[in-house]
């Protein structure tokens, strides 16, 4: 298992280098000039512009810039922001906990609420409760995040004045962002749990468990749910990865200084080091999360664990159960 983790961590390196080159190239060729944006259109003289370009190092040819950039990354130096002039790495580390808090707590929210709701739906499949919840989840799933966020601000901040509408601070600042960010995925996870459970509770081993005289609660949570977990873990993993870098909308609506808002602002001002640094950071987080998800699979299903452990087992009886789900190398799309 440790060998497997080490292997996966090593595999991350080429992936991240590819991401770095890709994002560098994209930003290099994307139209728009950071210097123009920094200095404004009319006030600056050509000399000023040339001087600034030289200072930022963007007057050099593509290859030279790329080498300088990659060299920096290898030394964990992500450069300085064009606009703010501060170190990108430090800024990312400062902003990361906020995004992580948001992502973790909304993940917790959707798991704690979504999984039991899905189980409840599955156990009452076809009945009124199930139908109501399914329609409700469909509605929640179709609500745009920003719209829900704005509505909540209108109600809870402007009207009732219960919760702060933006910024960061205590717990109260996170309540609305978490709810706004989670509702869609909560509905999603409820539906996934439901269908996954429905498949499992009709399987033979659940009948076996029932024939032992176990209570329905033990059957549901002890036998059925552990088997239904795999697709749920997948969804949670990709949701979490998405949240780490992709809560742009939520961070913008609620003015939370996290990674997402950092990235969006820097794209607007063509602040190349910040864009590159953020993307690379998001790619790295995503890779780590995917690794964790794969490890969770092994934890949830001994058959997958066996395929990780490799050929060390002497007593491999048969392979009829299959399920040799080879973990796909994390594909970083950001």
């Amino acid at each position: 298992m440790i060998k497997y983790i080490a292997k996966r961590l090593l595999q991350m390196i080429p992936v991240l280098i590819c991401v770095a080159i890709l994002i560098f190239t994209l930003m290099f060729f994307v139209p728009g000039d950071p210097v123009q944006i920094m200095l404004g259109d009319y006030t600056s003289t050509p000399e000023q512009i040339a001087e600034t370009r030289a200072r930022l190092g963007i007057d050099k040819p593509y290859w030279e810039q790329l080498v300088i950039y990659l060299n920096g990354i290898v030394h964990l130096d992500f450069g300085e922001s064009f606009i703010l002039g501060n170190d990108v790495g430090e800024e990312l580390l400062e902003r990361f906990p906020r995004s992580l808090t948001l992502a973790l707590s909304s993940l917790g929210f959707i798991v704690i609420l979504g999984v039991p709701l899905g189980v409840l739906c599955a156990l009452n499949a076809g009945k009124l409760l199930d139908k109501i919840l399914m329609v409700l989840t469909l509605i929640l799933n179709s609500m745009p995040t920003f719209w829900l966020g704005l509505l909540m601000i209108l109600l809870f901040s402007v009207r009732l004045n219960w919760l702060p509408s933006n910024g960061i601070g205590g717990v109260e600042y996170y309540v609305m962002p978490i709810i706004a960010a989670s509702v869609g995925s909560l509905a999603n996870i409820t539906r996934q749990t439901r269908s996954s459970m429905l498949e499992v509770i009709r399987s033979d081993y659940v009948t076996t468990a029932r024939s032992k005289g176990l209570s329905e609660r033990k059957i549901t949570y002890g036998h059925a749910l552990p088997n239904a977990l795999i697709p749920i873990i997948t969804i949670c993993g990709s949701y979490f990865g998405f949240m780490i870098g992709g809560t742009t909308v939520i961070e913008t609506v609620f003015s939370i200084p996290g990674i997402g808002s950092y990235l969006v602002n820097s794209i607007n001002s063509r602040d190349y080091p910040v864009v590159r640094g953020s993307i690379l950071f998001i790619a790295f987080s995503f890779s780590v999360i995917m690794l964790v998800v794969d490890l969770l699979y092994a934890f949830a299903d001994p058959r997958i664990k066996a395929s990780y452990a490799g050929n060390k087992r002497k007593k491999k009886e048969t392979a009829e159960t299959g399920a040799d789900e080879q973990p796909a190398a994390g594909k970083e799309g950001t």
Partner: protein
Amino acid sequence: MAETTLEKKTFLSVENLLVQYKLSGETVYAVNNVSFTVAKGTTLGLVGETGAGKTTIAKAILRILPDHSLKGISGSVVFDGKDLLKLPETEMRSYRGKNISMIFQDPMTALNPVKTVVDQIAEGIALHQNMNKANARIKAIEMLETVGISADRADEYPHQFSGGMKQRVVIAIALACNPDLLIADEPTTALDVTIQAQVLDLISSLQQKLGTSMILITHDLGVVAGTCDAVAVVYAGEIIEYGSKEDIFDHPMHPYTVGLFGALPDLKKNVNRLSPIVGLPPDPTVAYTDSCPFAERCPHVAPQCREKKPHNAEVSQGHFVRCHLAGEIAGKAAP
């Protein structure tokens, strides 16, 4: 079948059991007025083709039929003086696995893939014998050794076992709490022929050791001959012939039973073709209320078979046949 009197004490008696499923709007008549008894320490064989309703009978006794497709269940299953079908679910639970347990047809899917085999056995023991986890585990490992699996494999998962080994685990689960009644639902169907005999021997030897009664569901007449005391032949959800093993094997009365024996290849004769029972199994969505369900396939079919449902007639002591022509065919069928 109140008139049934077997010499030994009966402790399970199923009467007028009726089970219906719903299947996309249609009613499936799975079990129709089935009655039989099992005496203490004996084995009853339920024989019939696939889809005849054998497994449904078994699951109805344990009340583990799938809720989502069950339409109705009626009749009575009297076990030790109590009607199981009328018990509240919580009380029924205390019977499952403790007094009555079941071996399932397909060992490949009957075990939970994410739990170790010892956990799956210990679970029932801890529940029914008020043991703590550690003791239940010890007992479970003993059980594994009883069915021929060494203790060092106890903490392995089902996917690490072969089919025959898995079936041994299933047997260990079923017998873990010394049940009074064991229902074995085609315990050997999914296994290799070489393993079948081993598993059957294991079941019968454990059954004799523990004094367990058994309902053995099978479509294999050879298995019946080897293990059963009484035999019930199931066709279209009904028991069409019921009697002691000798009655059924030596004097089969119902044309379907005769056909079953006829379908067995005879090694002594040189035949080029097997002789199957012609036609297809009956449509389970049809309720045969005023005709014999076997009429369409019966070589001896008479006009009355399509007009009237045959009664359950006792042709000799303890031998019941549901056929209008029972007496006549018996003579013809004798080889």
